[in-house]
């Protein structure tokens, strides 16, 4: 097992698993040349996003350093970023482990192959670690590079940083893997893949919301506040992570110890602990992994016959077949699939409801020091008092923009056909016109979009006690704001559906149409909001501008869709 051929086999296996999830699969079902171009585009997009992320984390470190240097507490920064990285690796690692070790569709194919258990576990761990290294490269490296440059550190610091970067993710990831294996081996909860995925996804969302809230409230603290915060909370957190994840102290020590030999000594200790953790992982994996993964089913079944009454109710006995029932049942089918498929539930449905909350967090988390927030509060006050005539048009434009943005980013219309995957052919054999089927899919996207944005809007009006006439004006502009992003999303799908996937995740997360939808939504929202703010349009003009042109455009797009749907549907070969 420890020989070189075994390591090579692990590497080959890891590469094979990794390729199944890599950017090569990002594109739609186009021709090979187009696919390559699209793949290249995806890589460029990834580089851009990674650069943006690194810029954000590096920028935050720069701001924190300048705030803490006068106190002086800047020496706490390596501890802060190492502890945060360790915690994030642990949380996200557990989810990656679930996905790669347990819910990947390759498990059934790998089990009968002549691999030693350690080889399968090692390869899968490598895949998870590769994702974590990418993630940690954005979270840990830019801030600590900034710290090194600002504190005028010598070259050993940067060599040590590289060593810390390579070693720090290992111990929390090993712990996350063993913990996940224990849960999957011994708890009955996890026997239903779908339910567990949904619960884990919702938990992750709440962790993200909490993180977003903490970081937004942190970013608005004053220097003195922050120093007090650091001297208590950050040190407590660092102590806690050091206790739970052995090795964190050595990682921080390697970056903060003044004596170079001592710092390298700390790094060597971290390396030793990491190697030991890997040995423990392989031993634990042998005991836990295969027993947990075999027999994992996607859904629980009762195998209990339905009673006569249940059958009547479920089959709609008592009603009569009407054409409208076919449309409704088609929508119901799509809704059920959206809600019951964990990936679609998390990425499309829940995000659709939570997105307004994500937008509200910076407002709730921020104090009155942030200039943008203060302006927003003045705007709302102006609305409530009726003193500022500029407030209502700007508010109306913002609501329009938000509805467009939420509907353009929830990806429901933008994955309407892609979600069908290999079952797309069913759309072709049903005795229901393509236009009606597309209309039903559009109706699903519109209904969910309306529910998501409508609930937020009603809450906003109730909480802020805004006038009813303004609510009525918002209602006037909403149909256009709902229709435009959803219609454009469906049109993207008719041209570039991503039907060939082996994992539902690829239908929404690796679907370029979702990205096109976001860009289209940004353009529509920008075109609507900009004139209102730039030309300071009065309320009647703003209402007209946000109601009539979007509805006219939506009408044109609807006509286009009606003509396009049969043509495009016929052209798509499943």
């Amino acid at each position, binding site marked *: 097992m420890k020989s070189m051929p075994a390591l090579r086999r692990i590497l080959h296996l890891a590469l094979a698993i990794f390729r199944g999830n890599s950017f090569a699969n990002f594109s739609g079902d186009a021709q090979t040349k187009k696919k390559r171009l699209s793949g290249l585009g995806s890589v460029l997009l990834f580089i851009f996003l990674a650069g943006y992320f690194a810029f954000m984390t590096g920028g935050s470190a720069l701001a924190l350093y300048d705030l803490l240097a006068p106190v002086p507490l800047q020496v706490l920064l390596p501890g802060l970023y190492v502890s945060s990285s360790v915690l994030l690796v642990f949380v996200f690692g557990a989810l990656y482990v679930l996905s790669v070790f347990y819910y990947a569709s390759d498990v059934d194919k790998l089990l009968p192959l002549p691999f030693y258990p350690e080889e399968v576990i090692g390869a899968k761990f490598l895949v998870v670690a590769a994702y974590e290294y990418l993630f940690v490269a954005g979270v840990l490296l830019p801030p600590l590079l900034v710290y090194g440059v600002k504190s005028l550190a010598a070259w050993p610091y940067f060599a040590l940083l590289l060593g810390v970067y390579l070693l720090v993710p290992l111990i929390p990831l090993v712990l996350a893997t063993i913990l996940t294996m224990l849960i999957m081996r011994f708890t009955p909860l996890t026997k239903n893949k779908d339910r567990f995925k949904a619960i884990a996804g919702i938990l992750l969302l709440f962790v993200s919301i909490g993180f977003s809230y903490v970081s937004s409230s942190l970013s608005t603290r004053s220097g003195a506040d922050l120093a007090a915060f650091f001297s208590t909370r950050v040190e407590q957190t660092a102590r806690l992570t050091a206790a739970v994840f052995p090795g964190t102290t050595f990682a921080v020590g390697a970056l903060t110890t003044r004596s170079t030999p001592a710092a390298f000594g700390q790094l060597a200790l971290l390396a030793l602990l990491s190697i030991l953790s890997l040995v423990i992982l392989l031993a634990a994996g042998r005991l836990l992994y295969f027993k947990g993964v075999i027999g994992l089913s996607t859904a629980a079944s*009762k195998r*209990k*016959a*339905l009673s006569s009454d249940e059958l009547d109710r*479920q089959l709609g006995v008592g009603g009569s077949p009407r054409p409208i029932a076919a449309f409704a049942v088609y929508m119901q089918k799509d809704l059920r699939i959206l809600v019951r*498929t964990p990936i679609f539930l998390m990425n499309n449905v829940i995000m659709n409801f939570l997105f307004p909350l994500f937008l509200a967090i910076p407002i709730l988390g921020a104090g009155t020091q942030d200039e943008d927030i203060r302006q927003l509060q003045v705007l709302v006050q102006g609305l409530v008092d009726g003193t500022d005539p500029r407030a209502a048009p700007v508010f109306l434009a913002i609501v329009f923009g938000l509805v467009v943005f939420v509907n353009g980013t929830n990806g429901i219309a933008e994955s309407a056909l892609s979600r069908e995957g290999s079952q797309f052919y069913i759309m072709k*054999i049903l005795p229901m016109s393509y236009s009606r089927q597309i209309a039903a899919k559009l109706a699903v996207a519109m209904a969910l979009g309306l529910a998501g944005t409508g609930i937020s809007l009603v809450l906003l009006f109730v909480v802020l006690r805004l006038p009813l006439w303004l609510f009525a004006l918002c209602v006037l502009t909403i149909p256009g704001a709902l229709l435009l992003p959803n219609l454009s999303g469906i049109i993207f799908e008719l041209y570039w559906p991503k039907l060939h996937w082996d994992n539902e995740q690829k239908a929404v997360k690796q679907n370029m149409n979702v990205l096109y939808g976001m860009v289209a939504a940004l353009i529509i929202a920008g075109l609507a909001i900009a004139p209102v703010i730039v030309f300071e349009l009065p309320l009647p003009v703003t209402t007209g501008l946000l109601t009539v042109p979007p509805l006219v455009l939506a009408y044109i797009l609807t006509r286009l869709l009606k003509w396009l749907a049969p043509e495009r549907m016929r052209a798509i070969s499943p």
Partner: protein
Amino acid sequence: MIELQHVSKSYNGKIQAVDHIDLSVERGEIFGFLGPNGAGKTTTIKMITGILEPDTGTIQVNGHDIVQDPIRAKRSFGFVPDDPNIFPRLKAIEYLRFIGEIYEVDPVVRRQRISQLAERLGLSAALGDRIQSFSHGMRQKLIIIGALLHQPAVWILDEPMTGLDPKAAFELKEMMREHVAAGNTVFFSTHVLDVAEKICDRVAIIDHGKILLCGTLADLRARTAEDASLESMFLRLVEQESEQSIPAASEPAARKPRFPWGKRK
């Protein structure tokens, strides 16, 4: 009931999957569509059901052109695909309700037929469960129930025996016979030549996208001038066709499965 005239289909303009075929399937007959892997069976079925459009030619199902009058054509057939993985997140009963509403089957009739067919295929206890908890065979049975719910004039099945247990396979053959006895038509593709030999009124053998032979078993025997089993005739025809269609040694070795059921003894 099913009428194909000069139907062709190529993929990317290069691979000729179906090459100018004519086929007529009459009311009241079970028609077997046979051929080795990659012969063009599934492509033909996809064109009959409207999943693919033919490059040339016309297809009529129950008197309705599948391209010109697709909704009426689709209403008149029930289809059982070779891959039974449909809507795994729906419960079986929800899937059947969906099919019932789309085909506008009266709720009382739908209720009776589902109970009756589920009982017959041994699926009654699983109707309340999600399809993703079903085995391959159970999914196949569910699709069979869905395909027969609106009592279609034409029943089209692509490799229907795959994954069925012996009892279900027997029931399926019985159901095919009953379906044609009621004046309907059954059109199915299969690799199981014994089944075709036992239940088909007529068969067609397709290879390289062309119909090699079409007729009753007696016709086939007369035309091949041998008193052999369907399997022997099939293998001889396919072998001859392969030899004719591989003109030179430089031809790429793309058509490996000459004997899809294993080596000939």
